[in-house]
């Protein structure tokens, strides 16, 4: 059930993003006020909760990828840890790209 509840975190964060988009459309002042909110302790606390849920989601999601993706090389099945591992590796790479793109250098 915990796994199911992570979806609340997933959607919750998107609601937050949506709010930022909404403020973005209202102009600089409105947006900057909104983005300023992330400095508040309440926001930080919510973010931390969301992070735990998100990581739980990521781990449970990647760990089952070998069940869905079955690759055989010759007669040998590519072991589960390699398929999940590839996802983790991709995840790290994408995360770095995202951080770079959002935060700039």
């Amino acid at each position, binding site marked *: 059930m915990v796994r*199911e509840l992570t979806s609340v975190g997933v959607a919750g964060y998107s609601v937050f993003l949506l709010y930022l988009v909404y403020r973005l459309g209202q102009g600089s002042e409105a947006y900057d006020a909104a983005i300023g909110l992330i400095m508040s302790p309440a926001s930080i606390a919510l973010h931390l909760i969301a992070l735990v849920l998100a990581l739980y989601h990521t781990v449970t999601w990647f760990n089952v990828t070998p*069940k*869905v993706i*079955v690759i055989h090389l010759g007669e040998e099945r590519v072991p589960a840890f390699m398929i999940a591992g590839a996802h983790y590796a991709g995840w790290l790479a994408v995360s770095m790209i995202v951080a770079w793109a959002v935060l700039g250098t």
Partner: protein
Amino acid sequence: MDKTMELEIFRYRPEQDSEPTFQTYEVPFHTEWVILDAVNYIKDEIDGTLSYRWSCRMGVCGSCGMMVNGVPKLTCAAFLKDYTGKIRIEPLEGFPVERDLIFSMDDFIAKLKSVKPWIIRKEGEDKPLEEGEYLQTPRQLVEYQQYTMCINCMLCYAACPVYAHDNTFLGPAAIALGQRYNMDSRDQGRDQRQEAIASHEGIWQCTFVGECSAVCPKDVDPAGAIQRAKVASTIDYFKELLLPWGKKS
């Protein structure tokens, strides 16, 4: 025979009991005993009225599944020495109890039949026996081999929360067995099986809890089979949606 162990066993005899009860038995402890040995000891030496199923006592006939301390297990492959304290034995969850540890398999048999677990060839494409076997490379064999390992023990059904809530769900083993044929290079009947597998009662009820695979004693991985069927059925669905003129382009 100094050491003993206690087994607390679910009893229900429909003719005399209105409610199930638990009965506790003390059995000798032998390190090499499996739980089934202890249950057999009870039947042979203490209480002949206890009823349960078993046969091969080597983990292959699939008949000795029971809940052991709440977990579905093949009792001929679960060792006494791995348990401490009283062991609680109940019939597999999710099925109607017939008596004691015996539950009804009717539902599964009907479901198994509904996925058409046999080789289906297209009209006129049967190979005559005189022409020998269908060729199938080891590589093609491994595609479906894992799903042939199912011993129909029902542990996966007992573990699946979705089946527990709603037994219209086709369930892990039946779907895995459908996939077993779908992925067999000799088979051409996938379309026919989709009727059951891709229905509401089929793969779409499964929320990928994964407990089925966790308890499966034969590493069939029904959870994986179901997810792969979902992917394949989704591809089918969109193909059909987008290419209304030809089912499979």
